[in-house]
């Protein structure tokens, strides 16, 4: 059994906390490498919608929320990080939300002249229009923070799913993944192992085994994604449990 420090160290050696880790990217400054820039853009794309959902749930109209979120990320990409919010250490989820709040309450007011096309660097946040996506959010009393955490969890899951699908695709087994995916969280919904086995030319027992492997590997992919957003490997469990609590509310 290793200590948390040893585990963190081992994780770093395996590349979990390599140059693409968010704190490293943000610390890189304006003279960062193309890889670091690319990683930052990827982070912004991944977490664009959770922040948009936060801004919308805070009472901002759709067009303004879109502009605000876009401007916030444009600044992040330009490495104009908000002063007073420390980029090093901690959880990316908390850092990003704190930075956004800082931006919304202070910097935005002083820079409205730059909005709507001024210095904006448009990023491709999603093929799906964010407002279309927002309109199907449950109409409940969920606070902006809770919605943000829920959408953050969804973004992590989406990334883990992409990673897992890419692994199957790399081995020309995309079809297997697509058939097994609905079984990731259960066996109901009218989908049976036998039916999927018939489609894939596998026995029912083989499908069961494949689903167990898929679930286990999905869990590992998810942990890898979470690891990108926290300071040390030892914090992965705590972050996952906090998100579990957030989505269970």
């Amino acid at each position, binding site marked *: 059994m290793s200590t948390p420090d040893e585990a963190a160290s081992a994780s770093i050696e395996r590349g979990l906390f390599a140059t693409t880790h968010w704190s490293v990217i943000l610390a890189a400054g304006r003279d960062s490498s193309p890889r670091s820039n690319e990683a930052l853009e990827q982070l912004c794309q991944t977490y664009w919608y959770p922040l948009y959902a936060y801004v919308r749930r805070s009472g901002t109209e759709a067009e303004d929320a879109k502009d605000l979120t876009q401007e916030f990320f444009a600044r992040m990409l330009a490495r104009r990080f908000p002063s007073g919010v420390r980029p090093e250490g901690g959880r990316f989820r908390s850092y990003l939300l704190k930075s956004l709040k800082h931006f919304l309450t202070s910097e935005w007011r002083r820079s409205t002249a730059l909005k709507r096309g001024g210095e904006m660097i448009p990023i491709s946040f999603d093929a799906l229009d964010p407002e279309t996506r927002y309109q199907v959010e*449950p109409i409940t009393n969920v606070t902006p923070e809770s919605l943000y955490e829920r959408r953050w969890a*969804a973004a992590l899951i989406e990334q883990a799913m992409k990673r897992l699908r890419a692994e199957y695709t790399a*081995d020309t087994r995309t079809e297997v993944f697509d058939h097994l995916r609905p079984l990731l969280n259960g066996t109901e919904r009218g989908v049976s192992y036998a039916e999927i086995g018939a489609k894939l030319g596998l026995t029912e027992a083989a499908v069961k085994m494949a689903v167990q*492997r898929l679930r286990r590997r999905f869990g*590992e992919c*998810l942990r890898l994604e979470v690891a990108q957003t926290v300071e040390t490997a030892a914090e992965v469990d705590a972050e*996952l449990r906090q998100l*579990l*609590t957030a989505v269970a509310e």
Partner: protein
Amino acid sequence: MTVIMTATNRCSVCQAELCPSDEGNLCLRCLLSLGDQPADDPTTIASDRAALVSGHPSRASDIEPAFSTRRFGDYELIEEIARGGMGVVYKARQKSLDRLVAVKMLLFGALAKPEFIKRFRLEAAAAGGLDHPNIVGVHEVGIHEGQHFLVMDYVDGSNLARLIAGQPMPSRRAAAYLKTIAEAVEFAHQRGILHRDLKPSNILIGSDDQPRVADFGLAKRLDGDVDLTLTGQVLGSPNYMPPEQAAGKRGNLTRAADVYSLGAILYQMLTGRPPFQADTIGSTLELVKNAEPLSPRLLHASVPRDLETICLKCLEKGFLEV
């Protein structure tokens, strides 16, 4: 009336309501919980991945299901056989008696909500007192290393939902199943237990082709001393619940509630679809409360008239007691 196929928006595993914008309509809570089970040895990830994507096991341990050697007190967990309600069910061997059993464990371990634990205990208390050949028996309930579990009969077979699979079944067979299920439910009623969540997936069909009623997780004592459901929460499966349950009037539920669900199960056996279905839970509940079901004979002309009468009688609205 246009019938829209049901798009389930409640998780079949933990019953959490799903949001259309969630990942492919999968449940965030369940998917996150998959990450909350770290591999025993992180260094095996790479080799596991290789086995996973190639489909060819790389080690002897990959050949066996993940739980093939997992021990749990007096039980050896063999494989996961179902996820539903609040728990996951494993096929297991009870070592001391050398018999196959089903071990149901509460999902989320130490993170399980207190009301889930209470309902889990309720299931054990309700089904534990019912010794009937067509009710899945509960043998033991307890906690092992912080994990709540209950041990039940292992039924080697399928369930009625899979058997129906969207296709009507011969009327005589449907009637025979229903008679046996109704007698088992009557047995429970005589002992003061309402099931409240009768549906095809809760009816197990053994290799002897005999149905067995399972999952008393939402059961309630008829004398009304225990109701562990949450305030304002509509519990049960919308497609099979009576109008009074759909309206959230749990306190008024009587034996007629289970009779309604039996009618809904018969309807599905005869026609291949439940009596009411819509694209959201809310729309389905509205239909349950306010609409009349289509005549089974309109959907399937070969349904005997008497069986149709029984079915529609069960589904009549406004019953308070039978």
